Each structure stands twice: as C-alpha cells, then as structure tokens.
C-alpha cells in the first residue's frame, strides 16, 4: 500500500539505472543519512560512539571492500586483515614522515599502498582458485603480520613495537570528540559506498560478476580475466586499506600488528557472508550484525540466564558468540547465500504488495 511504484515510470535509461529506482527507497535512504549525520551526534553517548558506531562505520567500509573481492568477483580472500594493516602502517608512515601532509591524503595514501600489495598478492588468483587461493591470501596475512612486527622501520623504531597517532585534523577542523570522529568516518563510508556502488553497477562490476559466475565464458565474450581479477584485488585492497587506516587513526589511536590479525580477516569474511555476498547494502548489514551481536549477547544472556536460574559468566558469553557466529555462517551458506541482503529484499517485495499476500 505504501510501497507501491504506481506512477513511477522510467522514461530514460538514467532513471532506470538509478541506485534506488523506487522513490520511497530514495527518501528513506536520504532520511537515514540525514538522521545519521545530524540527529545521532546529538543523542548518542560517548560509549555508543566508541564501542558501537565508529567501529560499525569503519568495519562497514572494510566489508564493502571485501565484498567486492569475495562477493562480486568470487575470489576468496583470508588476508583482508593484512591489507588493513598495510593501509594503517602506510598511512602512519606518511603521516609522520611527510611534513604537513593532510590527514585525508595520508589515509588515501595508505589505501594506495594497500592497493599495490593487493595486486601483488592477487597474482596467484590468475592461476588458482578456491581453497588454493585462500592459502595464497593467508600467506599475505602471515607475511605482513611478521613484517610489521619485525621490520622496525615500519613502526619508526618504537621500542614497544606499537605506534600512536594524535592531533588529527582536517582543514582546521580538529577531529577530537567522539562525535567528530563519528562524522569523519560517516563521510568516508557514504562517499566510498557511493563510489563502490557505481563501480559494481557499471561495466567493471559486470566483468567481476562474469568472472565469478563463469570465467571461461567471460574470456570468450572478450573480458580479460587478468584485468578483471587484479582490478578486483586492487579496488578491494584500496577500500580495505583506507578502512584499516581509519581503524588505526580514528578508532584505536594507537595499535600493534595484532589488531589486524587473521581473526580480523575471518571477521570481515563473516560480515560478508552473513550480510550478503555481492551486495553493498549487505556489507553494511553484516557489519552491523557482527558489531552489535556481542553487545546484545552481553546484555541479553545474563538476563535469560537468571530467568532460568543459570548463572552466565562473561567467558560463556564470548563462547556463545563463537558458537552463534559459527552456526549462523553455516546456516546462511546453506539456506541463504545472499545473506541478510536477500532477506531484506524479500521483505521489501512482500511490502510492495502489502496488504495482499501475493
């Protein structure tokens, strides 16, 4: 009833290929962005910013990057943590070694170096796929784990091995309060989200999906597998690298290599699977889910436990997290490989014909 497209006829290709063809969708998305930018900073607590919102935004960005590689181009990657690390450390080195470099440029520079790494470690994808490619990406992960630990130049010879950044500002705007950091990250997510969406609905997106679906046929219609795969690695690593730089600079303030370990790679992969492979919105859903679940469990489980007279320890909550993640991964892969995004679009379909059942 409310979600009908009556009267919304598309008379130009431009109108037909919009990101949100249904007008109601457009309004809702604009409203959400406006709310996020204006209302949230007014009401959210510091805890909410630091523990939920900022990690959610940055991990959404990283998940978009991973989704481009894994979901759109079908190249499995267990090394995203390493690319985040490269982005973070490269941005750090640019920040402290290049005098007066603007913050945004340092962050993008981090992404650039992550891109180079991504292309190099993406070369195995030209020869192998599936499990074998996963092993190649793990090689990248462990190699960079070691490099940032042992090659002292990267950490500017810090005795403790960890690095810090402080005094972030952009064109005179000091990014100090949680609200400032939140808005900074939100801006990145919106901009990159839009660019990513443009890529995946354009020609290169179709190339990536063609490679994912049937790479032999893709070659036969004139798509160069090498260019498609390496460009997927490049774009994906760039976004993941920038996310990594944001993670280190804005969220953590100071970090060591363990912040970007293989567990982080798995976490990003899970976001993509649960959120929906091959969907930009899905990446955001997945990030939200994985960021919120632990917090939800932390509050809900003890309550549930006392309701049935069982004591729930904090240790159990984290075990429960693992079990629920694991079970959900398996469930989504079997039942709905397109994840929450598909569930969402099915819900929208039902909404379009509501109140009729079909």
């Amino acid at each position, binding site marked *: 009833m409310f979600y009908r497209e009556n009267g919304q006829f598309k008379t130009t*290709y*431009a109108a037909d*290929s919009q990101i949100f063809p249904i007008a109601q969708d457009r309004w809702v998305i604009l409203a959400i962005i406006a709310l996020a930018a204006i209302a949230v900073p007014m009401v959210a607590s510091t805890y909410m910013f630091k523990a939920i919102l900022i990690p959610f935004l940055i991990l959404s960005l990283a998940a978009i990057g991973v989704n481009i590689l894994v979901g759109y181009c079908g190249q499995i990657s267990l090394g995203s943590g390493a690319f985040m690390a490269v982005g973070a450390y490269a941005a750090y080195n640019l920040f402290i070694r290049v005098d007066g470099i603007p913050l945004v440029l340092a962050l993008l520079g981090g992404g650039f170096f992550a891109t180079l790494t991504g292309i190099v470690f993406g070369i195995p994808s030209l020869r192998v796929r599936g499990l074998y490619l996963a092993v190649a990406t793990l090689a990248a992960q462990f190699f960079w784990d070691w490099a940032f630990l042992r090659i002292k130049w990267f950490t500017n010879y810090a005795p403790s091995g960890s690095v810090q950044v402080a005094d972030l500002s952009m064109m005179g705007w000091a990014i100090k309060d949680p609200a400032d950091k939140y808005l900074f990250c939100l801006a990145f997510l919106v901009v990159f989200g839009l*660019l*990513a969406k*443009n*890529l995946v609905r*354009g*020609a*290169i997106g*179709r*190339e990536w*999906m*063609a490679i*994912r*679906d*049937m790479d*032999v*046929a*893709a*070659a*036969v*219609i*004139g*798509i*160069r*597998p090498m260019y498609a795969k390496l*460009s997927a690695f490049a*774009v994906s690593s760039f976004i993941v690298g920038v996310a990594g730089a944001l993670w280190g600079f804005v969220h953590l303030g100071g970090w060591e290599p363990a912040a970007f370990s293989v567990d982080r790679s798995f976490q990003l992969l899970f976001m993509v699977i649960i959120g929906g492979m*091959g969907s930009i919105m899905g990446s955001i859903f997945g990030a939200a889910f994985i960021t919120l679940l632990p917090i939800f469990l932390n509050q809900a489980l003890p309550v549930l436990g006392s309701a049935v007279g069982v004591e729930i320890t904090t240790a159990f909550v984290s075990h429960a997290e693992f079990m629920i993640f694991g079970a959900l991964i398996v469930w989504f892969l079997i039942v709905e490989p397109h994840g929450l995004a598909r569930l969402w679009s099915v819900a929208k379909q039902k909404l379009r014909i509501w109140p009729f059942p079909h």
Partner: protein
Amino acid sequence: MTQKKIGDVILDVKNISLSFGGVKALSDISFNVKEHEIRAIIGPNGAGKSSMLNCINGVYKPQEGSITFRGTTFKHMNSHEVAVMGVARTFQNLALFKGMSVLDNIMSGRNLKIKSNLFMQALRIGPAQREEFEHRAFVERIIDFLEIQPYRKTPVGQLPYGLQKRVDLARALAMEPQVLLLDEPMAGMNVEEKQDMCRFVLDVNDEFGTTIVLIEHDMGVVMDISDRVVVLDYGKKIGDGTPDEVRNNEEVISAYLGTSH
C-alpha cells in the same frame, strides 16, 4: 528475394588435430568459411563438432594445425583476442552468468567495447555515464530483436530453457561479431521455438551480414538454412559442400544410418 552476396574466405581451418590424453578428438580437419555465409557443421554425437568450435574460439588449444582469420594465421587462439577480433559464440550447455539479470548478461557482451576506465566509472559522470547509456540503447535493440523485453530484469537462472538460449544468443550478438559460432542453438526446443530461432539466425545473417558457423542436429534446419555443410565423424572430416552434395554423399549416409554388412 535478392541473392545473398557471399564473400571471400574469412576463416580458414587447416589440419587441426586435437587430443586429450590418449583420446583423439579431431584428426587433421581442414575447411574454410566464407564471409556472410551460413556454414553448418554436422555429424553424429561425439564427432568433435563442439571441440572444433572450441578450437576456433581459443577454449581448446589444438596440438597441430593452424587457424587463419582474415589473413592472419594463428597456431592457436586466445579466447579474449578472438573475441576482440570479432568472433562470438553460444554454448551447447549455456554459459550464462547465473548471478546476473538478463540485461546485465547481455550488457556484459558490450564490455569489450567499453573505453572508460575504473575511475570514471566510479564517479559515473560525463563520458562513463554516456557510454553506459549508449551501450544500453544498443542492447535494447537486441532485446527487441529477440523479443525478450519482459524479462530484462529477471535473473537468468529463473528463465525457462528456451529463453535462456535467446539470452545466450543476445549476449553473443551484443559483441557485434563478424563471425558467430552457434553450438546447437535449437537443442531442446519445440517446433515453434525452433522456428523462432531459425528466424533469428536468418535475420542476423541477413540484416547484419554476420557469418554464421552452426552446429545443429536437426537435418531439416541444416538443409533449409545453410549455404554449405561440413560433416564430421569420429574426429575426421567426411563431407564438405552444399547441402545437396552432402545429402547424397555415400560416406555421410553410412555414418548416419549405418552400413549394412
């Protein structure tokens, strides 16, 4: 009806031999294809017809022989280069991109014509935007031509087989090929669908002048629409000529009907 003008040899296959391990799929095959003609390849199952197309297309690399396309000779073809040179094909078992809609599948056929780079596509302004819509317009003409308008946004996996075959053809046509390799385009179709497909194939040949190389089992179709026929059996060529010549060829008859001992 004006007589079709058949041109010179555009594709020349010489002494192609292809083996997989111990199995010889093709033995010393030679034939040519003239521009603007419809050339059929026929033969019993397992004769090596699809393998032959795969060689022309670069999917398989023959151990011996050469392929000459428009005067340039190759020991073996590279899929991507062949596509850029203007050879497109459909597949016996459909090689559609199941995760994409009909429109996206056909648009992917235009990719080799796209010039704008990554950055411009990301920003989607000016040239990238214009290019996208130009290609969309071209693809829409193909969609009209093959009468699949209602299914534009449907994921291809959900379409019935006959329509999927049309999408396969549409994607090949989107490449604006000079030579179109069709691998059993009528397989699994009923009489009506076959008539439609025949009509499309003839129209493509007529309107765009595309050279067609066609693998087909339905003899009626082959005899009706092809200009020349190549007959394969057990990887060897046993007939080459006009449909009438081939129809009366002793070896061909015994290959299909068996000889009495």
